[in-house]
């Protein structure tokens, strides 16, 4: 192997620009110039194959392990004592459990969108971030999946939600949106995992070929499923990948649509609204891109991937965030308008209670985070500043959590009969569970960036000018 483990990534940058065009007229590249097939392969696979693990990784992984311990404690307590350790109560049967579920599921959406829809739309810039985003999707779905599974009063009977032949000869209730959730989320998890794994196969083969460690070679080899890179392989691979992309595409829309049905089908004022599906999907994409930015900006820096995740990627993500943010903000305004326009006393009160009720601070914070902060993305200077992008993304991450808080306990706590009004507050166990689920997410993410190529090597290679020497064909 040519490289030592911790060689500075690439010293070769032999570039001679033939035509000098003023820089500002140049399109922002999706890969920094000067790379070759070899340099890409080297660079990305080295991150995985180097022997010495950076201290930073240990620190991060250690933190995620600590948070995982919190999660274990929170789940243990929950199973042994009951969901009463949370802040839920009689008006508010759902609280941070469902808030966090929707939050995590929403985050996952960016991955699928980037991988599938942008693939179908031939958006080349997606290439360097899709693997990463897909992994994020999977881990977010894993974190999200914890909540519906554990939020039930008797989680050991959760399997009753699946339609399986049983001695009770009883189907689940197919009219229940929770039932739809089971299908939506499990399909989503399966397809996302497949898509991600299929996309990994050629790279696993690369790692197999380059690994010096016998065990690593065996493991990667098993994962690579005998990939040899023959034309037939490539042909079949491309077909399968496209098919999976086709399958994933409707999922981007369907999963969050169905999650929104949990609310829209119920008749609680503040839930029962027809605009929920598009509103939720836009919100999910919004949240997802914010989370990709949140993770990509530091990862790019620490793993020195600036050449592959370029400013163009970041800027594009900023644009998507702005666009979806506007949709979400529009939905907020529509919610208020429809509440007023309905003329319905309960809906009108709901609007009133959103803005002036006991959770008014949450609502103001929501508008600031999701309505105002993304407006910064109109300005190119902010869009191209990693610091501003990161800050905006953080606002959106918080804002999307607040949005679900405002929708779930914010609607439940004051519904039809004033006698049953109450308040909802998360307890320390609610927060433990939330922080713990972040731990699970980080744990998986750190394992991923250490053991798998976080950027698709073979797809990056297609970005090189050499790849297009014979025309634009795929």
């Amino acid at each position: 192997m040519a490289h030592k483990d911790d060689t500075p990534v690439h010293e070769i940058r032999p570039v001679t620009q033939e035509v000098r065009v003023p820089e500002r007229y140049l399109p922002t590249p999706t890969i920094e110039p000067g790379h070759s097939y070899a340099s890409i392969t080297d660079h990305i696979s080295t991150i995985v194959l180097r022997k010495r693990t950076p201290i930073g990784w240990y620190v991060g992984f250690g933190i995620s392990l600590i948070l995982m311990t919190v999660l274990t404690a929170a789940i243990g307590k929950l199973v042994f004592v009951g969901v009463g350790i949370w802040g839920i109560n009689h008006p508010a049967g759902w609280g941070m459990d469902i808030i966090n579920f929707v939050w995590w599921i929403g985050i996952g959406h960016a991955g699928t969108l980037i991988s599938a829809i942008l693939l179908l739309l031939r958006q080349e810039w997606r290439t360097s971030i899709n693997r990463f985003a897909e992994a994020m999707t999977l881990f977010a779905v894993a974190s999200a999946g914890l909540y519906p599974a554990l939020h039930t009063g008797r989680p050991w009977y959760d399997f009753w939600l699946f339609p399986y032949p049983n001695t009770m000869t009883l189907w689940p209730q197919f009219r229940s949106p929770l039932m739809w959730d089971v299908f939506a989320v499990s399909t989503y998890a399966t397809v996302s995992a497949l898509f991600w794994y299929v996309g990994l196969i050629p790279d696993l083969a690369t790692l197999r070929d380059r690994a010096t460690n016998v065990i690593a070679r065996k493991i990667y080899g098993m994962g690579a499923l005998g990939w040899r890179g023959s034309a037939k392989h490539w042909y079949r691979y491309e077909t399968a990948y496209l098919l999976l992309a086709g399958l994933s595409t409707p999922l981007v829309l369907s999963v969050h649509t169905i999650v929104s049905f949990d609310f829209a089908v119920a008749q609680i004022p503040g839930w029962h609204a027809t605009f929920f599906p598009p509103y939720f999907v836009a919100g999910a994409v919004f949240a997802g891109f914010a989370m990709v930015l949140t993770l990509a900006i530091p990862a790019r820096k620490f793993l020195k991937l600036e050449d592959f995740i370029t400013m163009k990627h970041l800027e594009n993500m900023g644009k998507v965030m702005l666009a979806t943010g506007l949709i979400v903000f529009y939905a907020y305004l529509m919610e208020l308008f429809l509440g007023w326009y309905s003329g319905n006393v309960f809906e009108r009160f709901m609007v009133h209670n959103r803005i002036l009720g006991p959770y008014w601070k949450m609502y103001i914070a929501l508008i600031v985070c999701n309505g105002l902060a993304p407006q910064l993305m109109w300005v190119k200077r902010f869009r191209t500043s990693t610091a501003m992008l990161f800050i905006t993304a953080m606002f959106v991450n918080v804002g999307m959590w607040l949005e679900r808080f405002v929708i779930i306990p914010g609607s439940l706590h004051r519904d039809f009969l004033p006698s049953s009004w109450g308040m909802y507050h998360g307890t320390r166990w609610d927060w433990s569970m939330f922080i713990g689920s972040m731990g699970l997410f980080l744990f998986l993410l750190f394992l991923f960036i250490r053991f798998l190529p976080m950027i698709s090597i073979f797809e990056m290679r297609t970005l090189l000018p050499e790849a297009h020497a014979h025309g634009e064909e795929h």
Partner: protein
Amino acid sequence: MSDDKTTLDFREFRERIGDIRGREYWRSLEELSRGADFEELLQDEFPRQAAPLANGVHRRDFMKLMSASIALAGAASCTPPSGKPEKIVPYVRQPEDLIPGKPMFFATAMPLGGYTTGVLAESHMGRPTKIEGNPDHPSSLGGTDAFMQASILGLYDPDRSQVVRTFGETRTWSDFIGALQPVLKEAAVNGAGLRILTQTVTSPTLGAAIRALVAQYPGMQWHQWEPVSGDNKREGLRSAFGGYVNAVYHFDKANVVVTLDSDFMSDGAGHVRYSRDFSARRRVRHDTKSMNRLYAIESSPTSSGSIADHRLSVRPSQIEGYARAIAAGLGLGAAGAIAENANWIGALVRDLQRNQGAAIVVAGDDQPPVVHAIAMAINQAIGAIGTTITITDSPEVEPVNQLESLRRLVTDMNAGAVKALIMLGGNPIFDAPADFNFAAAFDKVPFRAHLSPYYDETSMLSHWHIPETHYLETWGDGRAHDGTVSIQQPLIAPLYNGRAAIEVLGALAGGIDQSPYDAVRAYWMANGATETLWRKWLNDGVVANSALPARIASASTSIAAPVAAKQSGGFELRITHDPNIYDGRFANNGWLQELPKPQTKITWENVLLLSPKSANAIGFGDEERDELFNEKHTLQADLSFRGRTLRVPVWVVPGMPENVATIHFGYGRKHGGKIASEPSEKNPGGVDIYPIRFSDGLSGGAGAQITLVRSAGTYPIGCTQEHQSLNPKDVGGDRGIIRSGTFEEYQRDPRALLREEHEGAGEPNESMYPGFEYKNHAWAMVIDTSVCTGCNGCVIACQAENNISIVGKEEVVREREMHWLRIDRYYKGSPENPEVYHQPVPCMQCENAPCEPVCPVEATSHSGDGLNDMTYNRCVGTRYCSNNCPYKVRRFNFFHYADYDTEALKPMRNPDVTIRTRGVMEKCTYCVQRINAAKIEAEKDGPQGRRVRDGEVTTACQQACPSEAITFGDMNDPTSRVANLKKEPANYALLEELNTRPRTTYLGAIRNPNPEIRG
């Protein structure tokens, strides 16, 4: 004693251990053997084995000895317990054999404050599980209050005292008898030192026994003390009628009722009956021509006041002035009349004059005697005495001024004149007036014995504590509010070796073990009973025609001149007993503790009630208050009264008069069970108010100072409902939850009244699909909000019937109370004196139930009868159903609330209803177990079976309701009451615009204000 101690005498053994119950065998050898002479006997019989005991026990020897003891103990089972059989008679029928799974009902009677109310106790396989009202009993007519319903928990309470004790050490009944002998010997010579302290006694048997004792021990004195004092009424009636008499009201004959700080519908003897009588004149149907009218002049919000047509909120000391103003209006002398609200009083007086002989003025027990006397003078003037009010002799065996009776006792104790004090019930250490220093005087008595159901504050300081039986465990008798006698028959043998008051009196009379059965039966056999009559009395639960005869009496209409009131600054303090735990005696009853108090909806403790303005005046601003209340917190205040200061949580109640602070006594118990013990964080316990309850101000007085304490932080309050008004400003518009109007409007247009401006109301319930056809039954309920006083009888009845768990204050603060049926209370109008509406909310059993389609596992589904069924064992606990329920009637087991472990509570539970586990949703089922029982009965009837008849199924709430506000039945049966009520113009469905098609509907609240009084 056996002559020959060398042989084992089994017969004697049996006698000795015969009345020890099974669970007791294991406690101790000493107890089993009942003292030293048994040990002697044992040593004689088994010298080798018994001897080593004295110098420590060897394992083998111990085992041998124990097995011998157990074998002997088993011998007890060879004989029936305590010789003669004591037959109790079932109410409805006596089956040849007990049919497992089929309950039987027995009539008995529950005493409270001396007076008894007839009940029917439901017994499953020999264990009472539920209390119903006895329809034949004049104080009940089938209705019950919360105390009666909760008494079943009192029976099984594992914290009840189980053994005789001397300063905490376990003793036996015979030990007590032994200790009593020297006392009795002395008393036989001079009885003056022997004192008996009882609560109010109406029991003829007990009365006769005490009188016999007084004769036996010359000079012996009988004292009575009941902290919920009836002295004001006694003395007031005495000054009006010249002797201790009893007033029995006939609210069903009254067109106009005026209360002077009286809560006659939820307080005092006969209130269940009064509630029923009053409501009989208040139910408005399409053809109703008249309705009664209630004026309430009161100093704190009460249940009766909450359904009044006109309510004046005044200071307690002003009530007298208003009473005098009414008297003045009737020409009975104008001295001391209050001049405020003259128009109001004028209209009231004219209303009284118009209804000569059909009106009642009733004064509250906390008002001084003079108010009672004035009330009776007014009643005399309006011709009520003899028509709407019957005057009889007092049902009490010996009516006395109890405060003076106790004062005499304390004086004598201090003087050292009391040699022995036998207390039959009561808890004077806790509840005697503060200035009596009862504990100090008590300490000077050389022999103190206390009969009490709990090892409480008084028991701890007594030489002897004897566990008292529950009324369901022993024989007794007592009189109702009108004097009707009921024989109290036991449903179960004493669970904890308790003794009845009659047994203690028997011991005093000569140390002979007289069983309560013998005593009661002997008394009545000597007083007119025959074997047939006795059986009939037991069967009916009442002694026929035993109501005290009406006395030809007229009240003095000359009114005592007013005493110039001493006015001092500060608040006027009103102290009264708690609506849930009474004088503190029910402090260990979790059901009553967790019951939301009728007016404030506060659980588990007492709070200082203030009006909104008074709260502002002490610095508790509206905004801060609302914010805190919203989070179920409040501030505390230091309440100073006559030099004593208590720290109490403050609670603001609309409708409280200005500068009046009301607080309930009974809380702050120190001993007497797990709940009634020293307050801790887990066990709030409330504040003991007795330290500021003085003998000259049993119901408070002027001059209280209240200082808000901010440094102590905020205080959590287990309140189940905040102060929601239905003010459109606060709730976004008219939600149509409570529909109300006046009788006048109703008569003009019965329909228009209830279809107030309410968007969406009355629109046709349209659906794309044809509706489900309910071919057989269609169960439904109608609740008449006109007559609901919010008394809570139904809430506890539901709890008892359906094995509903209590959750504790912490969980109530987290809004997790489990009551299937709650009573919502809404205010309308100004917070100074708002109208109050009560709305009991059980499950609506919607035909289009929003909870059903959202459950992913079909744990809640619809029955063919239209019931919204809940399958507990299918529930995984997603709580989606609760979220989607617009009425929020579903209750979730966030933790494992049900007590699976306490043995004593297991037999209490209704065997027909599942105990729910954690993680499961539950809710009102319309008492489906009762519906099914009736259906099974109907199916068995005849070869084809028959349809369940109207009235055959009564839900627990319906059965308990004193004012008969709840009607249940089959909507498909056109002749059923419920079907007819559904056709009433006042019938409306809660949130009907949601198209849930609820089966539970309401009749709008109709009030009958005097047209002469506007606003």
